[in-house]
């Protein structure tokens, strides 16, 4: 069950938590019906199927697909994860080939149990025709799926704070009191991106301020 968090509710919670009131910006901007920007439609379908098995949705809570982990990876392949773009091209194609060889269908069209078995083939490095290896591709996707599910929503994943809800992370607090560090503390949830706070700059990397050429 996905709990919808409205923009108004985010602001209300921020006010309750004493955080700075700010527009939530791009947090929920990318919706599921928008096209992928870096992956092809076929690649995206396969990747969505993988992340949906790595962190599956179940009766208790939504998973990586609902959190937008595949969308996160797609967007990041255009910037921070660009060096991994070719690994995805090759790895996703190799996985589909492996699925066709083992089960006669592309990965995304298989049932969950079959998909899990194929992913275990990758994890245990018994699947063939991966470069450099099936396990390396598996670890790459697992790492990026964790990033896309649990990172600050600024990067397009952790949609509706699905990841932070799953872990029980209470959220960003710029000042934390001693009682809020007690082991049984019931801290009110703060559901904000760091960049909802106007004091922080995106993509900041410092500045040169010296006047050279004396």
């Amino acid at each position, binding site marked *: 069950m996905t709990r919808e968090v409205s923009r108004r509710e985010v602001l209300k919670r921020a006010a309750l938590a004493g955080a700075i009131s700010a527009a939530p910006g791009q947090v929920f901007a990318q919706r599921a019906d928008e096209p992928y920007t870096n992956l092809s439609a076929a690649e995206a379908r396969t990747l969505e199927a993988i992340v949906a*098995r*790595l*962190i*599956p949705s*179940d009766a*208790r*809570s939504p*998973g990586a697909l609902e959190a937008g982990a595949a969308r996160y990876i797609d967007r990041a392949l255009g910037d*921070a994860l660009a060096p991994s773009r070719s690994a995805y091209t090759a790895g996703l194609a190799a996985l589909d080939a492996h699925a066709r060889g083992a089960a006669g269908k592309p990965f995304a069209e298989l049932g969950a149990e079959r998909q*899990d078995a194929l*992913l275990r083939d990758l*994890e245990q490095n018994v699947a063939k025709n991966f470069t450099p290896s099936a396990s390396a591709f598996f670890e790459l996707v*697992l790492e990026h799926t*964790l*990033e896309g*599910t*649990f*990172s*600050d929503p*600024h*990067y397009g994943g952790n949609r509706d704070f699905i*990841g*932070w809800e*799953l*872990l*029980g*992370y*209470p959220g*960003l*607090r*710029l*000042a*934390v009191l*001693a009682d*809020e*560090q*007690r*082991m*049984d*503390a019931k801290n009110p949830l703060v559901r904000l991106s*760091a*960049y909802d*706070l106007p*004091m*922080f*700059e*995106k993509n*900041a*990397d*410092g*500045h*040169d*301020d*010296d006047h*050279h050429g*004396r």
Partner: protein
Amino acid sequence: MAVRLPRTEVVVIGLGGAGGVAVEPLTAAGRSVIALEAGTRLAPKDFAPDELRNNFRGWPQAAQKANREIPVHRASAQSPDDPRAAIHPMMNGVGGTTLHYWAQSWRLSPWDFRVVSETKRRYGAKRVPAGSTVEDWPFGLEELEPYYDKVEYALGVSGQAGNVNGVIDPRGNIFEGPRARSYPMPPLRGTEFTDLMGAAARRLGWHPFPGPAAINSQVYQNRSQCMYHGYCSRGGCHVSAKSSTAVSTIPRAEASGKLEIVTSAHVTRIYVDDDGRAGGVHYVKDGETYIQPAGVVLLACYTYENTRLLLLSDSARFPHGLANNHGQVGKHYMSHNQAATVNALFPHKLNRWYGLPAQGVGVDEWADDNFDHNELDFIGGGNLWVYSDQRPIAAASMPTFGRAPRWGAEWKAFVAENADRWTTSYLQKTTLPYAENYLDLHPSVKDPLGDRVCRVTADHKDNERRIASFIQDKMEQWFREAGAVATMRGQIGTMGVTTHAYGGTRMGDDPATNVVDRYGFAHEVPNLGVLGASVMGTSGARNPTLTAQALAWRTAEHLAANWSRIAG
């Protein structure tokens, strides 16, 4: 065509943890200093609490000079190179890595200065491990104590003293060497979890204590106290409570009017004059090459770059690299074997979501020579440290203690229950220098300017492996006493690129085995000083920064007091 700049009295290469300290006593003594810093200036707006950026994408160093010259590691001279690290662990910037470090600010123990003589005295000469090049420091803790004191107060360090002038205070570390006075601030507050760990340690008969941190526990020098927000590790401080040199010593040096800072300056060579003295440096900024002559050159980069820059700066007088006519540059390399840690799973929540790595509880019972090694097969030991610090991606990446797979529905249920019920520990252990562990220039891997990068040839030896196993036993015992239901030991790993790298320009009286003298000036080049942990001859079982800073302050004071003799 290089631009030749007017001569200055002192040029400092690197304005980080060590160089950033040295500029304060130098400018206070009236010396004119130009600091060449490869990075830029950063401010609180740059320090977003963003785990992905800070801890996984290596901000800001991913786009920096350091990241274009990442050293290459191999285990031995016979081993192939390991795959090169993707991110350099240290950052460039005014303040350097003190902008985003953990800020644990320990003094070394008395034993660390006297490893050879103390081992011989207590256990016999045969107990110094074969192949180790360890020497006693040229002085003991008592010589460095006044400088530890100066930097603790200049920067702002919080902590609980355990030994003031020989009077033991059991609230602090009873094993620490004598100090002249208490810390300028009380320690950072503990948490219910660190209290739980402290009580368990006391039941074992140990002496837990809050560790020292260059982080304000209360308002100090008009800077805020710590806010415990949980993004301290590899994140700058949004309220400037972290006592980086960028907010403490450097601003005071700038206010003197005697410090000029040049940012984005990539120093490529130190050059020598006809008399064999250091003449100044060459650096590149915005594609232009500059020559900066100076009376004294202070080399204050990180350990790897200190060695690399000396080796790159060869000349007719120094054909194997500057100050290397005795072949000692790059030798006596060490790094802490931090990877051999212990994780623990508890049956209840710990609430480690907030806090910082320096908010913890330490045990020194098994560090250094604080325990009898007669029946053991190693010397040295480790500090045990447990702390309150966890962020979401790292929590989701938690070990599963053999109780769940690494992904899928079962994993998800496990993590949902246990993400806040586990902890790790930080175990810093003695590392000795060995002839087989050294730094040099890589034969083929180069930076974008065409200069060869540093190569690390190093591996853990038997003494270090035995310490790791022994310390992990102790940490497991501590976690179990505190109620952990499962523990898991980490592997010892490699000696690849790390935040705790020592040696390469070791300090000592004998020029045959040391690059710099007891004051930090090169035996072969008297107006070249070296700052940083690269001068340290032993690692200790604790973070190096405060010791590097105390040594830097001492070198700077020595220079100021002996100006005409050193500057010539």
